[in-house]
């Protein structure tokens, strides 16, 4: 494509299939303790890679 470049694909849709194991870190524990961007958490589930 000439006008558009894709930085990231449909990764959220894919994660719906394997997600929900609940093993990842609680978001508020990581750094902020006052807000909760979850998008910077790590996924612990190998199947989601």
């Amino acid at each position, binding site marked *: 494509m000439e006008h558009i470049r894709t*930085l990231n694909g449909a990764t959220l849709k894919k994660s719906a299939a394997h*997600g929900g194991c*609940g093993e990842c870190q609680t978001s508020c524990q990581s*750094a902020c303790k006052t807000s909760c961007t*979850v*998008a*910077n958490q790590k*996924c612990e589930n190998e199947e989601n*890679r």
Partner: protein
Amino acid sequence: MVHTFEALGVYIAVDVNSGAVHVLDRAAYDALNALIAAQGQDPDFSQKPQGAGPAWEELKALYDQGLLFTRDDYIDAPAMAYLGEEPPIKALCLHVSHDCNLRCRYCFASTGDFGTGRRMTMSFDTAKRAIDFVMEKSGKRRNLEVDFFGGEPLMAMDTVRRTVEYARSVEKAHDKNFRFTLTTNGVLLDDETIDYLNREMSNVVLSLDGRREVNDRMRPTPGGQGSYDVIVPKFQKLVAKRGTKDYYVRGTFTRENLDFAADVLHYADLGFRHVSIEPVVSEADRPWALREEDVAAIEAEYEKLAAALLERPEVNFFHFNVDLSQGPCVIKRLRGCGAGCEYVAITPDGDIYPCHQFVGNDEYRLGSLYDGTFDRSISQRFAQLNIYTREKCKTCWARFYCSGGCSASNLAVNGDIQIPHEIGCQLERKRLECAIALRAIRAGMSE
């Protein structure tokens, strides 16, 4: 739903429901915005509109591939059944000390005692009960988290050490894996404590507000002296010896330092690589509270910070660290922080609260480790919170990144854990835009 924005000179479209992110040139950006203006979020691609330029074909191609204007169908996905269940408790904020050796002016814990007038540390017996409690309540979850918090947790190091030792001695038998973290103001750090923390804590959060004058104005000692000169060398020593383990130097910005990008860069100049600075959470009537009229300046400051960090790739600013492709699964993103259901705070008396920010608020006291009470009606209210039950989040483009904001700050500002704090939302969205733009530029996608 598609969200378009410009940040750092890059034009971006986020396809909210699929997680796809596209970098556009000006022609495509204008074409996409014109399409949304004319046809809304569900445009018809079966016919090329009159006057549409060549970028339209590219938009159509993305649409056909499920990368633009996708629908939110998670609500029907089987995984959503998970949202109806009350999750097991797997993370604790252990308030080992309701006492502090600083007197930070904005402290939500009323400088340690949480407004109780009683300064105390947690006994090992209480901490042991907390460990037993989380092992029992965590069901099949294996990874359990304990954050030593306060007040100032280094004032209760004996309890910290005995708690870690106890948890390690029982985790295998219960098939659990404890991860410890600790949040400290640094005043009591000595060589021995530094080595201990570097060995036992998977993450340490080091509180510092940036430049000396900013830090010392907000974070004085009980005698009114500044704390910067005492703590900075200790933090530097800790970080130098920490190796590759996680840490964050973390501060708070207020109305009194809206030029906080300088504070983040100051962290970097001090040699800290993993850094964060958070908007103050406070009642609206405080002089340092952020106001609606400050939002534009703060947004500009985030963009300024993002631009400056382009030149400092070694610095990891927490809120710009958004992993687009490998972040948490969508299910995690629906529910967010988990306060009050997955995560609880325990006071030195053994009382249980939804999270550290609720401690001392009687209405939200969940129960006690001593009499075995646990009020499920409160925890269920928290368990039901997700981006579909919070009205404002349902239509917000940032919902899968933010996951519904902070209940405590919603309560502090709007008197309701469900109603997002508007200023907080505006800042969250701006941080995300900066984070995504930074990713695009670093991937070489800016012209």
